């Protein structure tokens, strides 16, 4: 094929179809925008858009249903895995996912996520962990780091007063009903690529009927952390990953294969 100045260029990257063409309410540099896009890419590539029924959290991403173009159900704070269970059981043909933050999943919703995982519910949980409660103004989350200054730990989180950060995905990974549990981050393009692969594998766990799947995505909160977006990504890469190691924690699909 001959190429000249009139040959159109290739499109390397464009907005995925399932991501709405509108600006978001998220703060500048907020990781939710990246995770939304990755989800839209993965679901679009797997052709799952028409089958998806997603459950929204309470938190900054409560408006996820404005940005991702499939059916959504709101849930009370923390209850998304239970709502997703109900949807899943009566609609075996649907593709069901939850999108939750650290307060939703690791604080008020610990019972719901543990039992959905224990039952091996065929749902995919996306856990966006930025170690802070952004929507309500920057309070401590169960996943906040020791020493992290938040509006409810102004002197820095002390273990004796406020406990230790909870490694939710490690805890869930030991349950037999969990087919896939992984932790990624959005710290740089390479990590973003790996996280996208984790999301795809987590969706495949549901499609294969293998069991419950969860992907924890370490994300940032520039405003809550009191940093510029660029500083927050550096903090994510250099500090947060020390407490929450990246990688695939369990992949029971591989063991069976």
């Amino acid at each position, binding site marked *: 094929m001959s190429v000249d100045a009139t040959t159109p260029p290739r499109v390397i990257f464009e907005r995925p179809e399932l991501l709405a063409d509108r600006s978001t309410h998220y703060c500048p540099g907020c990781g939710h925008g990246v995770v939304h896009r990755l989800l839209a890419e993965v679901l679009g590539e797997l052709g799952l858009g028409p*089958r998806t029924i997603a459950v929204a959290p309470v938190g900054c991403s409560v408006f996820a249903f404005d940005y991702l173009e499939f059916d959504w159900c*709101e849930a009370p704070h923390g*209850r998304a895995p239970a709502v997703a269970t*109900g*949807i899943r059981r009566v609609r075996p043909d649907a593709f069901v996912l939850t999108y939750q933050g650290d307060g939703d999943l690791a604080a008020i919703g610990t019972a*719901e996520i543990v039992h959905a995982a224990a039952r091996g519910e065929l749902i995919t949980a996306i856990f966006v962990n930025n170690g802070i409660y952004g929507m309500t103004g920057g309070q401590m989350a169960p996943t906040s780091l020791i020493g992290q200054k938040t509006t409810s730990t102004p002197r820095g989180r002390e273990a004796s007063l406020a406990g230790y950060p909870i490694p939710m995905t490690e805890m869930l990974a030991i349950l037999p009903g969990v087919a896939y549990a992984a932790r990624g981050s959005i710290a740089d393009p390479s990590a973003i690529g790996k996280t996208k692969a984790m999301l795809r594998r987590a969706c495949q766990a549901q499609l294969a009927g293998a069991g419950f799947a969860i992907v924890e995505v370490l994300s940032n909160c520039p405003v809550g952390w009191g940093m510029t977006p660029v500083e927050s990504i550096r903090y994510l890469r250099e500090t947060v990953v020390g407490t929450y190691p990246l990688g695939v924690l369990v992949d029971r699909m591989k063991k069976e294969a």
Partner: protein
Amino acid sequence: MTASVSAGEAPTPPVAVPDRPKRVLMKGNEAIAEAAIQAGCDAYFGYPITPQAELLEWMARRMPEEGRVFIQAESELGAINMALGAAATGARVLVSSSSPGMSLMAEAMSYMAGQEVPVVLINVMRGGPGLGSIQPSQSDYFQATKGHGHGDYRVPVLAPASIGEAMDLVATSFELAERYRTPVIMLADGILGQAMEPVELRYRTPERLETPWALTGADGREPRVVRSLHLKPEELEAHNEDLQAKFHRIAGHEVRWTGEQLDDAELVIVAYGTAARVARTAIARARAAGMRVGLFRPITLWPFPEFQLAELSQRVRGMLVVELSAGQMVEDVRLAVEGRCAVGFDGRMGGMVPSPDEVVAALRRLDESERQGTRALKARRPRRHAPLTGPRPVTRAEWHRPPVAGGGPSLGDDVFSPFGDDAWSPEWEQETPPPGVPGSTSGQVPGQADTPVPEPVAPATRNGGRP
């Protein structure tokens, strides 16, 4: 049937036996569960709690047999949220629990009302508050009709009085939930759940309605969102106005009640559920003793049959509300009656059930007090603590209401004595205080010896003119 013939007799013609549905002895919980299954329940989510665990167990056995969904959730909180999700896809969903579990479901009630998701909940009430007891009670009336979750919403509440009625009302509950896109509560109690009665296996399967709002996957259509969050005040106001319009429609069309022997009644017992069954026996005994008593039994507690009670209050002398509680529905009765007749209350708490004779005695007291024009009905039975030795307790009427000249009707002023009957005397209703009560000036609030006391207005007034 063949005719039997013996020598010398004309053959007896065969007797036609009318076709009757089969009657089976069933436990209430199980009968209600089976009625739900036959009504087309797609999914049941529950958690064991006495006295409704048999409902869950029946569902655990039968739902998989029918290829439907059953989950024993990790808690009532999990169960009700599973129900929210399942119902958001258009499924016919049932949840059951008892009083403490209903409290756990309060949050989700608000969400289901705001998101307009149809779920049927059955509350087999037990004694409270807190862990309470496992015995029957009706102390969740406030919770069901006015309480549970936050926000401006109402929820239809149905109250069966027998197992057979409960079976039918389960189907009605599904109908109401789906017709109006609302959660619906069926309020049973521990007796209804645990008793065994012969029931006719007569079931109803409400037809399925179109659900253009349901989440089914955005295949070839615009995505749908089932939500209650509307951050713009204009939008939330509009949403709330839609909800209120819906509640008005329900109130206009779905009131259910029944009456017995009301045509010639002078006194009426207002009761629902098991209390109504006790009342029925009490009425039979009262009638035998010459009292003209009838029964008004609300079947929907919300929408409350207020207009029917208002009309009835114009032609009866008094109403006795009987509940297995400290008195919750009685407040709605008083609101409906608006002082047109006397309203008294009789009830037991903590899982105790009033006997028909206790109810008859309360009827007599209501009758007598109404005849005397005092409209007072003191607390039903002496309580087991020490009599009050200080200043006499203040009546509720004194605390709240100015004196009514001429002894006109006042709104159900029963003497509210937290210190027990032992400390109360009928003489205190009169103008002069009884001898020996310290602070002998009547009308003083305990502890305020310096409060000036106004002159009594008239001796015949209900409170003796005391403020």
